[in-house]
């Protein structure tokens, strides 16, 4: 990393991550506290707002870097820790620090380096390497770390050479389907006509995915650079970045980046003296999952209702305002910029035979270290979930991971050796998707998860085609019945049948893939469905209709805290005797179990609580 980036003008920089995730964790307050501290101590330190480096489990973190000192990262910082941290740092006491940032950071009081940590050294930060280090609002910093060099090179060469390099790199789209980028660009380039468009897809609507937002908030120029290269390659003069209005910070950073790029001559007329003209518009979408679909996105930009239309014609032939248009995921475009800067050879050296390079994944749910991680394509699931994300929290075990959001599927724990590349995942019934990974443990019910995803697609589809609109609703209502304990054994066949119709008849990929969460849970967790349907039992104790709360008379001291907390007054009893839950009133909110100081209230599976309670008591005697 260049010195001017690491230390800045003053020789002492404090980095504070200002991304949506870190701000939610309290980075704003930390920033204010740092400002106050520096003022009171009269220190000449430059505070650098940076993006997020993906380690969400240490949010908010800060990094102190002074010439002559190592770069030190502090984790889970609160405003009241700041004084102490700065004092200790200047004293070369790093006992409360998280890690040294760089490999060559050494000191008389050494601590662990980021590179020695599993969460870091198992990653290959090809794309996200600058996230959390450079100031996303500073075009100069981006240029200092090699930014816009790829564009410079592409502007000088024939567009066919650019396509050839992408072909050699074998970059496949990161938006989900994995379509080779060079083919898409080539088709569009070969279309006749002067007017063409490029669109960066930063809609990212699937639950559990946030790598596109992270990239846009942390390194927005990389996306723009990729977009300009795309425009130059296919011969477009206008581009759009399609961002959800729900990602206001990402939109703001992209807007600022575009403004700065225009000012520095990377956007607008005669880019870098090449004679090529290109400008972009940041398009704020009202936000619906279906907007991520290419034709729906085009309709939205045209000011219409975001309904997908039948393909072909593909957008590369007839897209925005009927002109040839390419749509790429922002991660794909960032890859393009990095490939053009660093060379395709380095990219192609990563990944598998069929799918090259790296992919960012967002790991959330039942792991110790949630975050956004970048690994080579083809990395086994196990490595990501255990080595990087640290495996399940104590006392829990991972049951499965849901990959690719609502269009994806789950992969059970015994298949975690599966390499994450497009083809392997497809064969397992899941998809790479945009990269969201929701990790599920034994407290997650797979039927309930499938129900959740179908409720999502039923609500977030466009509602245009009958198979998609009615199919998702039928599936959702059937799953709801099952989780309510009203399922019938025929429901399994019914779900399979609806899924078959949707896969064949739906207009767009949303409907065609919406049943994947159900199909994969059938494949790997059918027993849970049988449990719900035949035994009226939810092993994971999630489905409310299939569980009951029960007071353990051995543990209950009769304090009646539970009775006071119950919102529906379902608990009665006298001080000193075992409390009693009136199950006819109980709404199963779980407040009593949470508040009980003696852990005396438990969830028990099954619908007929009294029987199960009796059995237990009999056993004890």
């Amino acid at each position, binding site marked *: 990393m260049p010195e001017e980036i690491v230390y800045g003008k003053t020789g002492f920089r404090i980095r504070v991550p200002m991304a949506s995730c870190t701000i939610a964790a309290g980075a704003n307050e930390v920033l204010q506290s740092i400002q106050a501290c520096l003022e009171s101590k009269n220190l000449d330190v430059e505070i650098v707002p940076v993006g997020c480096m993906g380690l969400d489990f240490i949010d908010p973190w800060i990094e102190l870097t002074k010439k002559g000192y190592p770069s030190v990262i502090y984790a889970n910082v609160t405003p009241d820790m700041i004084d102490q941290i700065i004092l200790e740092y200047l004293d070369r006491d790093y006992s409360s620090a998280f890690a040294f940032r760089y490999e060559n950071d050494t000191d008389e009081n050494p601590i662990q380096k980021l590179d020695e940590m599993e969460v870091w050294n198992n990653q290959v930060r090809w794309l996200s390497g600058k996230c959390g280090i450079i100031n996303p609002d500073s075009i100069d910093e981006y240029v200092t770390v090699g930014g816009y060099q790829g564009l410079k090179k592409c502007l000088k060469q024939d567009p066919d050479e650019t396509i050839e390099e992408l072909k050699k790199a074998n970059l496949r789209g990161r938006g989900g389907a994995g379509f080779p980028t060079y083919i898409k660009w080539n088709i569009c380039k070969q279309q006749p006509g002067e007017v063409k468009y490029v669109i960066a897809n930063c809609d990212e609507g699937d639950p559990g995915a946030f790598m596109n937002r992270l990239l846009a908030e942390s390194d927005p120029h990389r996306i723009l650079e990729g977009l300009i290269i795309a425009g130059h390659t296919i011969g477009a003069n206008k581009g759009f970045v399609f961002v959800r209005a729900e990602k206001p910070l990402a939109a703001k950073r992209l807007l600022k980046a575009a403004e700065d790029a225009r000012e520095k001559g990377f956007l607008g007329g005669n880019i870098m003296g090449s004679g090529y003209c290109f400008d972009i518009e940041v398009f704020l979408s009202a936000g*619906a999952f*279906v907007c991520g679909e290419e034709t729906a996105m085009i309709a939205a930009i045209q000011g219409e*209702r975001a*309904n997908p*239309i*039948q393909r072909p014609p593909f957008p590369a032939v007839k897209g925005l305002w009927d002109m040839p248009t390419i749509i790429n995921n922002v991660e794909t475009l960032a890859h393009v910029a990095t490939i053009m800067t660093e060379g395709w050879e380095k990219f192609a050296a990563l990944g598998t035979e069929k799918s090259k390079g790296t992919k960012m994944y967002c790991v959330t749910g039942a792991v110790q270290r949630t975050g956004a991680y970048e690994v080579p394509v083809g990395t086994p699931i196990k490595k990501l979930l255990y080595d990087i994300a640290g495996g399940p929290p104590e006392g829990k075990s991972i049951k499965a991971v849901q990959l690719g959001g609502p269009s994806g599927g789950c992969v059970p724990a015994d298949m975690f050796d599966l390499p994450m590349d497009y083809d392997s995942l497809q064969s397992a019934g899941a998809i790479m998707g945009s990269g969201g990974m929701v990790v599920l443990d034994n407290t997650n019910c797979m039927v309930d998860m499938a129900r959740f995803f179908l409720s999502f*697609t*039923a*609500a*977030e*589809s*466009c*509602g*245009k*085609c*009958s*198979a998609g*609109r*009615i*199919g*998702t*609703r*039928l599936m*959702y*209502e059937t799953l709801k019945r099952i989780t309510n304990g009203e399922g019938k054994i025929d429901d399994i066949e*019914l779900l399979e*049948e*609806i899924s078959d*119709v949707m896969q*064949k*008849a*739906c*207009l767009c990929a949303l409907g065609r893939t919406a049943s994947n969460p159900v199909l994969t849970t059938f494949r790997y967790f059918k027993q849970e469905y049988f449990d719900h349907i035949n035994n009226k039992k939810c092993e994971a104790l999630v489905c409310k209709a299939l569980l009951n709360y029960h007071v353990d008379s051995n543990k209950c001291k009769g304090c009646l805290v539970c009775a006071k907390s119950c919102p529906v007054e379902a608990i009665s009893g006298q001080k000193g005797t075992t409390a009693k839950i009136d199950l006819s009133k109980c709404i199963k909110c779980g407040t009593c179990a949470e508040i009980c100081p003696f852990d005396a209230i438990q969830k028990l599976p099954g619908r007929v609580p009294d029987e199960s309670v009796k059995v237990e008591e009999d056993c004890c005697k």
Partner: protein
Amino acid sequence: MIISVRSISYDELKRNLSHDDKIVLWSCDTCVKHCGIAGMDKMIVLEDLLREDGYNVIKKELVSESCQINLAKKHRAAHTDIFDQATAIIVLTCEIGYQCVKTVFNDKKVIETAKTFGAGNFSNKKGPILTSPIPSTNLEIDPEGYTLNNLVERFNLHPKFFDADKEPNPEKVTITVDGKPLVVKKNATLLDELLANRMKIPHLCYDASLGAIGACRMCLVKIEGKRGFVPSCSTIIEENMVVTTEDEELEELRKSVLQMILAESGPEIQQSRDIRFWMRRYKLTDNKFYLDEKDEPVDDSSEVLIRDPNRCILCGKCVRACTELSGQRVFNFANRGSKTLAITGLNESFGNTDCAHCLACAHYCPTNAITPKSINKKIVGYPFWTLISYPKKVAPKR
């Protein structure tokens, strides 16, 4: 309805045109259509004829009711870019429609094609019948009424449409359908050609006048070399295409989609013509899918139309008819996903909207979710205009 007959021959029409003209075909979609001399299909025929003879047709404009001058104005405003280029407009409308177009396009050559005789009605056996001739025709009021043929003979006019004068001969290609070769029009929509060749393909959201959106998923076929199932309404014919329109898998799929549509809507839609036809054909008596029945209030606030949302299958025909044929945009979609609705105005009552009462929505609605109030509500199941029954004999004048 208004009764009109073609007043000029194809040769006369050509004499009015020059090869430099940029021609717009303009057609009304109501009475004259039922007189057999207008409508989208007739415009396509005329376009084929003119193209063959080297004329330049730049647009076909279908208007729900061309006799409403407001609608004519809106159509011009919606496509000023193309209309401004046009030099000649051939109007397939009644004389009143012609007057409106002439007024709106007073800067252009507007060519009239029909003579109007007065009001009448439509008989399923005899077709359009003139019952109330306008005085200028000097026709007696005849209790039997006058058929179109009567009028053609009596006034020495031209029978039927321009293709009666000269057969159009558009470019054809051969495709294979269900194993047999079929000669079809080049670059046409696959569904149109299949239907034209008397094949039965279910289709609820497509109409040649409204274009394709591929929403109902009933018209799916298999095409060699294309993945999965493709809606024939959204497929343009390519030479040597190999199409399967009927096999067990397709039938099962269409049946399932139909059952889904039936599950979502109220039971009343089973009485509408298309739905009933396909239910019978597929021998559907019960539904494997179940959803709670819709129970929305019927909107009868409009003076002219009744709208029953429980019969709506969201095919979007009313939305397109209102937007494209009338130019009013009274109908639209609201919400998304399984909560999607067709609404009037900004989700207000029908009576509150600036509906032009052109009835295009009702005409195209495949499930009678929108019907004119003048129609006896008990007779359901047929598009309303085929229902309009007229007294066989007009009572003799006293």
